[in-house]
C-alpha cells in the first residue's frame, strides 16, 4: 500500500439523480478520487440504514448517501422519507460513537456532475484526514481472531 492512507468509501445513490449526476461527471470528463464505490438504488427511499452497518462491516472508512433534492424525487417523496430516517439514524450512530463525519448525506441532481465530482474529492480528503476507522476495524478483527480463553 502506498504510504498515504487510501480511504475506502462506499456510496449509496439513487438512479434518477445522483447516479445520473455521476454519469454526467463522466461525460464531462471531470476527475475525482477513485476511492469511492457506488451502489445504485432506484431511490433514496430504498436506501436502508442497515446498508450503512454492512458497509462498515466491509471495512468502509467513509459512507456517502446521496439522492434527488427534495421536490425532485422521481418517485415524488422517496427523499422526504429518507431524510427523516437519516436524521434519526445519524443521531443514533453518533450516540453509539460512530462519528457522523464518516457518514455523509447529500442531494445531487442529474445536472450537478460538478457537484458530484467535488463532493467525492472533498469526502475522500476529509476521510483521509480522519484516518482509517480503527475502532470498527478492531471489532472486525475480533470476529476473525481465534478464541483466546
Amino acid at each position, binding site marked *: 500500500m502506498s504510504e498515504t492512507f487510501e480511504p475506502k468509501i*462506499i456510496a449509496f445513490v439513487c438512479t434518477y439523480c445522483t447516479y445520473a449526476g455521476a454519469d454526467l461527471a463522466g*461525460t464531462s*470528463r471531470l476527475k475525482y478520487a477513485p476511492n469511492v464505490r457506488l451502489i445504485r438504488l432506484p431511490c433514496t*427511499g430504498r436506501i436502508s440504514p442497515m446498508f450503512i452497518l454492512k458497509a462498515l462491516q466491509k471495512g468502509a472508512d467513509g459512507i456517502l448517501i446521496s439522492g434527488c433534492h427534495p*421536490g425532485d424525487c*422521481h418517485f415524488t417523496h422517496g427523499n422526504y422519507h429518507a431524510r427523516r430516517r437519516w436524521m434519526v439514524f445519524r443521531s443514533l450512530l453518533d450516540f453509539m460513537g460512530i462519528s457522523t463525519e464518516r457518514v455523509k448525506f447529500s442531494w445531487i*441532481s442529474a445536472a450537478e456532475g460538478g457537484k458530484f465530482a467535488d463532493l467525492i474529492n472533498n469526502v475522500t480528503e476529509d476521510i483521509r484526514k480522519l484516518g482509517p476507522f480503527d475502532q470498527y476495524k478492531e471489532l472486525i478483527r475480533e470476529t476473525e481472531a481465534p478464541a483466546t480463553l
Partner: protein
Amino acid sequence: MAKIGVFICHCGENIASKVDCTKLAAAIGEHPGVAVSVEYKYFCSEPGQESVKKAIRDNNLTGVIIAACSPRMHEATFRKVCAEAGLNPYLCEIANIREQCSWVHTDKDMATEKAMDITRSMIEKVKRNNKLQPIEVPVTRRALVIGGGVAGIQAALDIANAGQEVVLVEREPSLGGHMSQLSETFPTLDCSQCILTPRMVEVAQHPKIRLLTYAEVEHVDGFIGNFKVKIRMKSRYVNRDVCTGCGDCMVKCPVKKISSEFDCGLGKRTAIYTPFAQSVPNIPVIDKASCIYFKNGKCKTCMKSCQINAINFDMQDEFIDLEIGAIVVATGFQIQNTAGYGEYGYGKYPDVITGLQFERLATASGPTSGKILRPSDGKEPETVVFIQCAGSRDPSKGVRYCSKICCMYTAKHAMLYAHKVHHGKSHVFYMDIRAAGKGYDEFTRRTIEEDDASYVRGRVSKVWLENGKLMVRGVDTLLGRPVTIPADMVVLATAMVPQPNAIEFAKTIGIAYDEYGYYNEAHLKLRPVESSSAGIFLAGACQSPKDIPDSIAQASASASKVLALFSKETLEREPVVASTNEATCAGCWGCVLACPYNAIEQKDILDRSGRIIKSVASVNPGLCQGCGTCVTFCRSNSIDLAGFTEKQIFAEMMAL
C-alpha cells in the same frame, strides 16, 4: 451452479485507455461462478452483440454482465440481446466502468482495480437476479398538452389528427403564446398571425381536442398510461358557453388605461379584455385587479351592455379531474427581465425597448398599427441601434447560454425598420452572428447588403440621454476603436429564460430540470423530446431556447412518441415492483402509509369458514412504481423489491 458471462467492452479507447481490460478479464475469469470472461472493442456494435448471443447459447449462461458504459445508456440494448438469445432479459446487468471509472480517473492501476470491484459487485448481484416478466398496464388513450403556444398547438393537432383524444390546457385567456405577439417571422417574413391563427382556429374546432384556456395544471398523480391530472379553470367572470365574442362589453368598459401585457406595455387595454383581436377563444376576461365593480361594487357597465348577459361576477374557479395517458409539456419561455441592465438604461429611458416590444410596434394590429414610432414622443426614429446578446452569453447575469434566435430576429427587425422607415439608419452591435438555420445566413446577408444595416462587431458599454439623443457607447473591435452612436431608439435583444414558475411546475408534475430551470431531456442526442419521467414529453422553448421551426419539429416528435404509446392496448412496464411475504407480515400498515402511489392494499387471509385469520399487506403491481420506500420501512423485512432485492443489494456490497 451459476454460469455467468462477463463481457468487457473497450468502447474504442474510452475504457481501454484507463482500464487494463486484459488484466480485468483475467481477474474476472477467476471469480467464482464466472464461465465466460471476454473483452472486445465494441460490444454495442452488431458483431459485438452477436458474440454475446453466441456466448449465451454456447455456454447456456444463467447470467450476463456487460462491463461497459452506464446502464442508462445500453441496459435496454443488452437486455434485448439476451432476450433474443433465449435468456430472460432481467438476468443481465451492466457494470458501469466508463462514465464512473475510466472517464473520471487518471491512475490506471486504481482505475483497473475499481473496475474489478464494480464488475465483481455486479456479478454477485446478477447471481441473485430472478427471471422477471414485464408488467402489463392498461393505457388511457387521452393526451394532455400543457401550453397553447405554437409547439402546444402543433402537438395537439398531430395527436388529434391521428384520431386520439387531446386536452389542451393554456394558462392565458387565448391560445397563441409568444408567437402571436410577433410581426413577421424569419427567414421568410410571413406574418405570424397569418400562419398561426388558422392553426388556433383548427384547434378550437377540432372534434378530438378539448380546449381549456385560462386554466392551469394544479396537480399530477399516477404514472405513464395512468396519470390523474387536476386542472384549475380560472374564473373569467364571463360565461364561455353563452358569450359570442361580439366585444360590446369591451367597448363600453370605462377602464381604458390598463397597460396591455400582450403589447408589452406599449398599448392599453380595458378591464374586460381579450389579449388580441384574433384571440381564440374570442371570449373576454375580467381583470379583477383593475375592474371597478370588484374594487367598490358599483360599475357593472359590461354586464348591462351584454344583451345575452354572459357576464357573472360571482363565478368561482372550478376544478376538472382528467384521466390522462401521456403528457406533452410545451410551456414555452419568458423574456429576461432587463432591469438587470441598468447600463443600457432600460426602464429609465422610454425609447430603450426590448425586441418583443419592437415586434409589437412592427405588427399591423399592434398599438402603432405597424408604424415604427418612438414610445416617448411617437415620432419615427431616424437612427435605431440594435444591441445583440443583451443578457445572453453573460455569466455575470446568470445566463451563460446563447438564446439562439436573437441574431435572426434582430436582422429581421433591422430589415423591417429599413422597409418602414426608408430614410432611417440602423446599427447592430453584435459579437458573433449565429444564423445556422436553412436560409438563415442568406437572410442576415440581405439585411446588411440590401437594407444597409451597419453591423458593428463589439459590445455596448453604456447608453445615456444627451440633448435629446440616446448616446450608445460601444467599441468596434474590427477597427479597434471605441464608437459612440447618437440614436433615436435602442432595441435590446434580451435573453430567452424559462417561465418564472418553471421549477415549481416541474416539481408539480415530477420532471427534472437543469440549473436555469429548462426541463431535462432523457438524453440530449438520443431522446431529446422525452423527459426523465416516463410518459411525459417535452416540446418547444421550455426544454431550451429555440426558434419556431425547431419548436414545431419537437412538437411533432412528441406527438409521435405519444401516438407510439397509444398504439398498443396495454403498456409494458419494467417489472421492478415490490411483493410481500404474507407469512411474516405483521399487518402494521406502515408500508401502506409510506407508499407514494397507494399501491399497497390490505388483504384478509381467511380460514376455511371464512373468518379472518389475519390481514396482510399486498402490492398491486400495476400501481407500484418500484421506488422501494416500503422495503426500507418494513422492520421485519417482509416486503422486497424485484430488481433491487435485499439479497441482491447485500451481495453487491459483500463483493466490494
